[in-house]
Each structure stands twice: as structure tokens, then as C-alpha cells.
């Protein structure tokens, strides 16, 4: 699961572009976007991605080999039973989708099988969520702040502690591409 905000779009594009076509895992993307930019995001990411990029419907079953992007203005939860649940309840820390909420719910479901990644961003959303990923036994990665367009989000995540890897963009991409289903 990847969380990002300002400056993360290109990073996500290069991660998705580096995947093999027969990628075995689902990838979850929780990215902040401008309130009124509600369309076009999926299309642009799809052009770069080796696997299909989808904004999931509520209760849609999660399948491997797809990149799921949290829809604009919805929180995206992972429910037991391998399904999404969307919500329009109030933004958390001014964010909807909230990276924290996606990370926490994914951590509860996938536990040690979850890899949480925080990318460039201009606020602190995701730091709490990444800490929870670690607490549930998952792997935590933060983009090297020196390679970020905006460092705030990665620095907040690093301050929370429990970060396994600090990686450059290329390193994140190759790490994700080489993950296998367990």
C-alpha cells in the first residue's frame, strides 16, 4: 500500500511502470489530490502502468495484479473478506482519502503480509498509519526525503519510528516489482 501527496505522482508512475505484467499482488494507492480534480488521474496512471489501474467500487473484491487507487473524496478501507469499503465520512487531518485510515485497516487485514510505503507529500497524513503497519508486523518503507519534492510527509513518517527502509525512488520501484505472493 502506497500513500503519497504533493510530488508523489511521478514516483507512483515509475513504480507502476517498473512492474512485470504478471505481477502477483494487489497494490493499493492512497494519494491526495485537489478537491475538484476528480477525473483523469486513473487514465494518466494507466498509461504508465504495466498492470490495470482501477478506482474500486464499494465492496468490490480485491484481486491480485491490479493497482487500486482510492477514489477522490472517499476514504478507502480494506475489510475482512478481501473487499473494499468506501466511506464519505468527514476528512481526517483534512484528508479524504485518508492515508492513515487506509493503512490501519489494511494492516489489520494483511498484518505481516503488508508492505506500507510513504512517498513525497506536504502534510503528515500516513505517519500514524505506517506506524500501525509496523505494529501489525508489516514492512515499512519511506521514500528518502532528499529525493522528495516535498519532504513533510516522509519526515513525519520517519519521526514515528519503526521504519524498515529508507529508499530512493528507483530502489522503491525495484523492491515493489520483486515482491512475490506468500
Amino acid at each position: 500500500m502506497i500513500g503519497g501527496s504533493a510530488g508523489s505522482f511521478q514516483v507512483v508512475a515509475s513504480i507502476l511502470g517498473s512492474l512485470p505484467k504478471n505481477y502477483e499482488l494487489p497494490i493499493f494507492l492512497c494519494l491526495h489530490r485537489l478537491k475538484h480534480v476528480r477525473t483523469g488521474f486513473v487514465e494518466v496512471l494507466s498509461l504508465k502502468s504495466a498492470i490495470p489501474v482501477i478506482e474500486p467500487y464499494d465492496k468490490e473484491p480485491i484481486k491480485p495484479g491490479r493497482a487500486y487507487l482510492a477514489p477522490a473524496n472517499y476514504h478507502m478501507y480494506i475489510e475482512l473478506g478481501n473487499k473494499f469499503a468506501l466511506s464519505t465520512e468527514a476528512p481526517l487531518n483534512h484528508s479524504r482519502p485518508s492515508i492513515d485510515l487506509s493503512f490501519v485497516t489494511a494492516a489489520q487485514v494483511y498484518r505481516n503480509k503488508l508492505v506500507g510505503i510513504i512517498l513525497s507529500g506536504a502534510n503528515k497524513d500516513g505517519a500514524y498509519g505506517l506506524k500501525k503497519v509496523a505494529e501489525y508486523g508489516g514492512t515499512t518503507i519511506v521514500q528518502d526525503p532528499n529525493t522528495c519534492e516535498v519532504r513533510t510527509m516522509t519526515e513525519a513518517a520517519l519521526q514515528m519510528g519503526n521504519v524498515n527502509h529508507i529508499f530512493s525512488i528507483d530502489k522503491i520501484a525495484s523492491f515493489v516489482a520483486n515482491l512475490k505472493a506468500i
Partner: protein
Amino acid sequence: MTIEDIDIQYFVTALKNSSGYDFSEYSEKSLKRRLAKVLMDNKMELNQLVTEIKKNVSFAEKVVKEITVNTTELFRDPFIWQMLRYKVLPTLQDNKIINIWHAGCSTGQEVYSMMILLNELGMLEKARIFGTDINSDVLDIARKGIYKYRFNIGYLDNFDKVIKENPYNYEKFNDIPYSKYFEIDKVKDFMRMHPFLTEKPTYKKHDLVRDENIFFNKFDIILCRNVIIYFNYNLQNRVFNLFSNSLYQGGFLLLGMHETILGPMSASFDKKENIYIKK
């Protein structure tokens, strides 16, 4: 935001026994989160909350109001309203009566959106508008039709897209003033719907989990947007069944942008773009 480790079952059972409200088939993660928020807002531990719910039905009612989600906008997702205006509503032009049910209408913004569209098409007179929600407080707000101005400035952008612009013909621009439908007071920070709109709908308290169609008619259109996301798959199916039984053949069901009929009930509808049509 501690949504882990809350014993949701304990709460759900107490609430059901005390008040009859059944949250056992709500989506679990968001219910947990909102329960955590209710506990925080009331400065209570779960034990205290449950004890209070058991001995005090009006407290249980208050908790239900706090735990349900009321997010809505005027012309939320303008693209949907443009479709309604140019593709859906014109097909009902020759009906003598048009029955419309806003299920889970919250504070009424979509009820007003619909009435404004109908009025632009000269169809408001013959429309009968019904709004329901589980929370009677939001229905009171809907009846008044008064909304904050500054916080909701996006409503005006949405209005422009749906009412002034025509996405199917960019040369047609209708310069319709907001004052045709609502008054804006920037100093007192409100917008207020005009009486010919506030007086029109029938609002009733209704719980999609427990209640059948409480009106003595079927519907041409049912709008239920961003409500069923709070329900699990089984409950969603039951609600779709209720909607299917409450719609005329050829009637329209509008869900939220990321809601869809996934289960067996999908066989009862055709889907055109984002709109379901009862078979």
C-alpha cells in the same frame, strides 16, 4: 482514531435490544471508526456508553444520530446531474405524475438539486418528492433548506456546471441567477432555499435496514447516493431488493459514483453509464 480493538458486537447488540436499530450488517471498519469518535465526543468508555444505551432509549437515538454519516452537497458530482437533466428526466416528460424517493437524503441538498432541475424542465408541478433518513435531525435541516455559505461555496460551482452550462452543447449557456432558487446572505453566512422549494417535499423518518416502502406508491426515480457504502454485502442486497420492488418497470435508480450492484440483484436492472434501470 483508535479503531482497532473495539468490541463492536457488544455495542451493536445493546443498541438493538434497547432501541431496535440494527447495525449488525453495517460495514465494520467505518462503523468502528465512528463509534470511536462517538466515544471520544461523549468522553465515555465503551462500557459506559453501552450502559447508558441500555437504560435510556433517547440516548440510544442520539448515538444513532451521531454515528451515521451525513455528507452531502448541492449537485454533488455535477456530471450525474447533467445526465439526469439531459438524458433521464426528459424521458418522463409525458408522465402525469413523477414520484421520486430520496432514500437517505440527509440534510436535503440532493432533494433541492432535483427540484431545481425539475423546475428548469417545467416538471416540478407534477413531481411528488419524498425524502427519508434514519436521522430525524437532518430531516429538520432539510425542511428548512438553510445552509452555511462560506463552507459550501462549491455548491455554486456545481450549480453553474449543471444549470448554466450544457455539456452536450457548449454554445448554449443559460444565465440563470442563484436568486431564482435561493437567497445568499454573505454577511450572515447562509444560503436559504426559496419557499416554493422548501414546501414541496414530504419528509419521513425511515430506516433502510428495517422498514419497507412506507409510501403508498411506486417510484419513477430512487436516489440513494453514498448510503449503501455503510452496509455490508448482504444488507446491500436486501436494500436493492427493496428498491427494485419500489420502482416502476423502467424506473431509475441512482447510486453514488463508486457504488454498484454486485450481487444477484444486478439481474433486476440494466445499467447505462452510472444509472440503473429497473427491468
